[in-house]
């Protein structure tokens, strides 16, 4: 540890002080009491490095760059740091560094984006190194204090022991000295098999406040002198405000101001949100509905259907010659599937609180990407990022809605600009949230399979037609009309989803057709519909070939041992091959995505009235390394609710250019009564880091659809299931 020398370092506190010079001096009172909700460490706590703060009383604050939205990343990332730190876990709490601090410190915390199940899989290396480096510095500081070599000292449970003499000290006592050392550059990490904090099913750090009402969400924020805003954006995407009559509501209780928000929206600012919303509902607005006012679900479906046969398409996976194989097949099987628009419908509607002056702008918001929120703030405020700040707040659900685009943050800043110096909280109504989502993309898929005389699959053609999320959000990343994310789970290789089946002739391509409805990354992203398309069609092929769906898949997965292992696990545990309980039937699905291998076996029954019951789902996940097994189980279970909500009910339809569903009465989601028992099998095989928040979601729907076929003989090829008549023919 010779590289640690006693040099003063530029510290967190100096930067905090510099930011403080800009600050408008507004701190949210309730939130200030919360460790992780926002803000910086009190000025007395020494920072050992960017990730670790140790207070004199031995309490430890671990800084978390990614956002907690329910997926447990806050606890998982803290476990990884604490593991390498040899911390006393009972003394650990967490906080978010702000995006402004990240900017000021040359991105000391790296990427803040929290999506694509990347929280842990992309940052495990440097956060563990952060913990390890801090431990090395604390040990070195203790050794220097004793005048002994650091190599004679050991750290455990936040205590450092000089082994030859038996002397001990604690992290809190040496933290200040440690903070003055130069960080090590050679930082060995522990083998995951030796983990004692990471890898364990520890309780979450953020549970208690979520059981007593104390957790402050963005929607709950109250700042001194704050006003509230309710907004209505043109319900037709691409339309704008023609006019509004502010005078009609100016005298209503509590109303302060009626303001345009960009060209497309109008907001009412009032003392309370309810009064703002009441006045907004009464506000006469005329819309210029723009060029998309005639678009409907039917017209979109026609465009996608044409794409299924279009000569031009971007190739995602090609081997051999699928067309020739299909032309010469002993038996051809063909099917067309479809997957609708869906809203994220986070329980907490979009919201942000902003305060703007000509010199500075600050925003408090639940965001999956603090840096992107800062960029949106800066643009909307007309101020450089260094004069803006974003305070992250725990999210009341994210699922991808609060990551890539920060439309609500822009709106909040534009509203606050019209009330300089006054904090204004913008909260969307549920209706606004439903009408202005960033929707799960709409696609159709035509699959054609070639079977030889023995029922072997010799060729597969898969044409996806429809929307590209990347084209909608990051159009600069589209090359030659190709969106690589469309092929999640279908690619020849790569960690975002390698197609496991060995088929000699294969062609998977995408005819991009982008309706005007804005798409977004939606938990599970494109893996959701791709798993439905491939795994239901595999089931169709198996039946056409007269083979058992498990055996049919096994033969094709012989070169994909990890795909095969999770499939075998659910087949065994789910009772595949054994008789199902009276009236029930089973279905299988497997896929790889977000770096993990997943499979499911669903058991369902359908009564004579055609009503479906999903009794149980056995799910297996191989994420490589498992950081918190009980939270992974929670993610698997939770993602099934999300995935099954989509499969059973989720559909946003379009009429006259706008979304028709405005609330949960017309956009039903899964409730407890529909929830199956879920058995999550965690089988981390080591050697890689896969995500857990998303991948398993994708196998729920196809496993259920295949079980429905087994129960009823009916293939459901268009989701959601609520449109299907499942009564036995």
């Amino acid at each position, binding site marked *: 540890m010779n590289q640690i020398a006693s040099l003063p370092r530029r510290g967190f506190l100096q930067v905090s002080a510099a930011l403080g010079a800009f600050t408008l001096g507004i701190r949210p009172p309730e939130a200030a009491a919360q460790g992780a909700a926002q803000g910086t460490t009190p000025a007395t706590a020494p920072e050992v490095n960017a990730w670790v703060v140790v207070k004199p009383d031995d309490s430890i604050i671990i800084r978390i760059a990614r956002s907690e939205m329910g997926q447990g990343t806050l606890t998982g990332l803290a476990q990884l740091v604490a593991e390498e730190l040899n911390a006393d876990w009972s003394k650990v709490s967490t906080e978010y560094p702000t995006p402004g601090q990240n900017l000021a410190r040359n991105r000391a915390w790296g990427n803040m984006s929290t999506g694509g199940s990347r929280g842990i899989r992309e940052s495990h290396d440097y956060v563990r190194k952060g913990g390890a480096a801090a431990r090395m510095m604390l040990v070195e500081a203790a050794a220097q204090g004793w005048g002994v070599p650091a190599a004679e000292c050991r750290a455990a449970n936040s205590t450092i022991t000089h082994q030859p003499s038996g002397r001990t000290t604690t992290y809190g006592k040496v933290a200040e000295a440690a903070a003055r050392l130069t960080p090590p550059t050679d930082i060995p990490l522990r083998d995951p098999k030796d983990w004692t904090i990471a890898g364990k099913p520890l309780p979450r750090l953020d549970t208690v406040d979520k059981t007593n009402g104390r957790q402050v969400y963005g929607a709950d924020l109250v700042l001194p002198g704050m006003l509230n805003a309710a907004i209505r954006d043109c319900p037709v995407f691409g339309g704008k405000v023609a006019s509004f009559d502010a005078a009609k509501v100016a005298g209503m209780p509590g109303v302060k101001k009626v303001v345009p928000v960009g060209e497309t929206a109008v907001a009412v600012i009032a003392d309370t949100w309810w009064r703002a919303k009441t006045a907004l509902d009464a506000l006469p607005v005329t819309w210029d509905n723009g060029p998309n006012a005639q678009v409907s679900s039917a017209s979109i479906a026609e465009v996608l259907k044409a794409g299924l046969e279009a000569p031009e398409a971007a190739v995602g996976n090609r081997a051999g010659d699928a067309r020739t194989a299909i032309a010469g097949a002993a038996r051809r099987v063909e099917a067309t599937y479809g997957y609708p628009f869906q809203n994220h419908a986070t329980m907490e509607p979009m919201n942000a609180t902003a305060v703007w002056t000509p010199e500075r702008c600050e925003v408090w918001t639940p965001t999956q990407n603090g840096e992107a929120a800062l960029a949106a703030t800066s643009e909307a405020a007309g101020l450089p990022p260094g004069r803006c700040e974003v305070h992250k707040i725990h999210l009341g659900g994210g699922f991808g809605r609060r990551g890539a685009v920060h439309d609500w943050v822009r709106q909040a800043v534009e509203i606050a600009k019209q009330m300089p110096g006054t904090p204004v909280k913008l909260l969307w109504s549920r209706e606004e949230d439903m009408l202005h989502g960033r929707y799960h993309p709409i696609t159709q898929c035509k699959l054609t399979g070639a079977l030889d005389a023995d029922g072997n699959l010799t060729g597969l053609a898969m044409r996806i037609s429809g929307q590209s999320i990347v084209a909608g959000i990051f159009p600069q990343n589209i090359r030659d009309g190709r969106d690589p994310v469309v092929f999640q789970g279908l690619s020849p290789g790569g960690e975002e989803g390698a197609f496991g089946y060995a088929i000699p002739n294969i062609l998977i391509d995408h005819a991009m057709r982008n309706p005007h409805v804005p798409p977004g990354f939606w938990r599970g992203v494109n893996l959701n519909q791709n798993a439905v398309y491939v795994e239901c069609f595999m089931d169709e092929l198996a039946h056409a070939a007269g083979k058992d769906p498990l055996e049919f898949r096994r033969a094709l997965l012989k070169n994909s041992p990890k795909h095969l292992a999770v499939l075998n696990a659910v087949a065994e545990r789910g009772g595949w091959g054994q008789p199902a309980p009276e009236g029930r039937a089973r279905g299988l699905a497997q896929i790889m995505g977000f770096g993990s291998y997943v499979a499911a076996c669903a058991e369902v029954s359908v009564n004579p009235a055609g009503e479906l019951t999903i009794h149980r789902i056995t799910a297996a996940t191989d994420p490589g390394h498992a950081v918190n097994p009980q939270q992974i189980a929670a993610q698997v279970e939770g993602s099934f*609710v999300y995935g099954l909500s989509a499969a059973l009910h989720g559909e946003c339809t379009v009429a006259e250019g706008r979304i028709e569903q405005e609330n949960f009465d017309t956009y039903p989601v899964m409730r*407890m009564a529909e929830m199956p028992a879920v058995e999550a099998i965690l089988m981390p095989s080591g050697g890689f880091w896969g995500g857990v928040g998303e991948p398993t979601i994708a196998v729920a729907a196809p496993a259920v659809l295949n079980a429905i076929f087994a129960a009823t003989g009916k293939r459901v090829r268009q989701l959601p299931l609520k449109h299907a008549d499942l009564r036995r023919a």
Partner: protein
Amino acid sequence: MARLNINGRVVEIAAEDDTPLLWAIREQAGLTGTKYGCGVAQCGACTVHVDGVATRSCSMPVSAFDESQKIVTIEGLSPDGSHPLQRAWVALDVPQCGYCQSGMIMAAAALLAANPKPSDADIRGEITNICRCGTYNRVQAAIKQAAGGNQANG
């Protein structure tokens, strides 16, 4: 102007008569543990107790109340988070994002008050709150645990 008895305290509410109880609780009484999720009695995030009965506060005007009715919010369920449900929630690590959980706990508390040993079917029939994070199975398990084990299966 309404006078409401919230968590044992009488609060003066300076709001129009048609203001939903939810917004009076959140914006006038300043108790933000009760959440807004839909505003149309669909999701249950706004559930409070009115004289012990689980009530979706977004869909009741303040004018329907006076100080004779006892309104209890998540903040008033127990003084220190020690209600058996809250303890079970912590023991089983039920919440994910947590946004729906105040409403879940209040709905569950009203259920247990009326039916101390609910069966799984009772729970699944009575708890109709929406959780988009998908905590349903842990919610069900925690209600059973708070009710004192698994003796009432079915």
